[in-house]
């Protein structure tokens, strides 16, 4: 995934200037953090992702395209997130073995405490369990509020794929939260 358009890092004369990262932090910091958190699901990865986004902005790798600044930030954030996901996929993945479940009795109080999770955390957890590509589509649609054409452009996928990823992602959420 690349952040289009890369160009020479300088905005064209008629484009709006690239906002400084101070401006982004001041005016859109909460939005940026929220999108990153919905994608990663934890504050540590969120902070790394936000840092990466601001670095990309500062390095001038991304030309600001006129329009919604938040849409532009969402695109950089989502691409940085998916880049990191792909990088991690190349590492050896260790899965939890079946061993603990087979050997361990879970206390009913612990189960009860866990089932009392508040709804936003349940939703966030279900979101995290979506495959990253599906999660990105759902977040861009339902957190950022992009339309399907914008999501297709952001993720560089056909509109039909956007449609199916969002729908299947929601179906998985429904199943997880049923």
């Amino acid at each position: 995934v690349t952040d289009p358009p890369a160009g020479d890092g300088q905005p064209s004369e008629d484009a709006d200037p690239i906002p400084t990262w101070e401006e982004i932090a001041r005016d859109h910091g909460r939005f940026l953090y929220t999108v990153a958190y919905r994608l990663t699901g934890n504050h540590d990865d969120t902070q790394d992702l936000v840092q990466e986004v601001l670095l990309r902005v500062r390095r001038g790798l991304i030309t600001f395209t006129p329009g919604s600044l938040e849409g532009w930030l969402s695109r950089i954030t989502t691409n940085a997130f998916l880049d990191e996901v792909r990088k991690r996929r190349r590492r050896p993945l260790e899965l939890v073995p079946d061993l603990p479940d087979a050997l361990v009795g879970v206390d009913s109080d612990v189960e009860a405490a866990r089932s009392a999770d508040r709804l936003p955390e349940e939703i966030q957890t279900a979101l995290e369990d979506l495959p990253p590509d599906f999660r990105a589509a759902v977040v861009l649609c339902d957190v950022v509020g992009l339309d399907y054409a914008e999501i297709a452009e952001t993720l560089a996928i056909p509109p039909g794929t956007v449609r199916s990823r969002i729908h299947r992602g929601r179906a998985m959420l429904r199943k997880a939260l049923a």
Partner: protein
Amino acid sequence: VSASTSHLDDLISAYVDGQLSGVERSVVDAHLASCPACRAEVAATEQAKAWVSQLPPADPPFGFYERMLRDGAGPSPRHPRWVMRLGAVSLAATASVWFGVVGFGTLDANRPGGMPALGSLFNLHSEAKAVVEPTDRSVEPRAAAFGLPPALPGGYELTELSEHGASEQAIYQAEDKVISVILTPGVVIVNRLPAGTLIDYVDGHQVFVVPWEGQIYLVAQRGYTVVTIKGPEPLAPSMTERVDPPTPGRSLTDRVENAGKGLLQAFGLG
């Protein structure tokens, strides 16, 4: 779209999102008028959309942006910032309550290449309850609550901490070697330990050396947490013999049985 021959599939989300063309929308409306199942599907999809869209904003920690702007580029991505933060927190917060660093008996002296001193994994917080606070899913407090060290001898660094059902899994990586540590709330059900399980003691606590599907796992009870460690390579047979030398006339089943009683007594559960 043929409303007469099929249900709506992913048109439903596009319908809910207002992303259909006029023609498509008419077709869907016509279908919905006569299909209760698809109407229910629309309602459920609206609910799923609302779940996500109504999540509250996530706030950065106090001073987060200020620090980032002040520090400039920040640390190299090769050393994730959160690992370093975790180290600092662990040192500051846990000195008085941790178990001391313990060796792993005879294992340490004879561990195979690449195997770290596993005893250092057992510096678990003496009060650890293993019930994850559901409102805070960030690595730092969870890892600190369990007393997981940020690094292990042999160049292993804590790279990930993730939830898997009721379990937490920490992954330590060095080069291409990986060690998994799994923390699960509950107690070891001793009579489910497979045949061939051996016993060792770490700092007075019993540890099970469990063969499972061709690999060796170390399993220990710590408070109300079961700690399971999967190393980068299986322990050599000669090492497991040193953990619990065969006793004539004593079957593996007997050993597991005895271990179970000791374990239960040690934690006041017997």
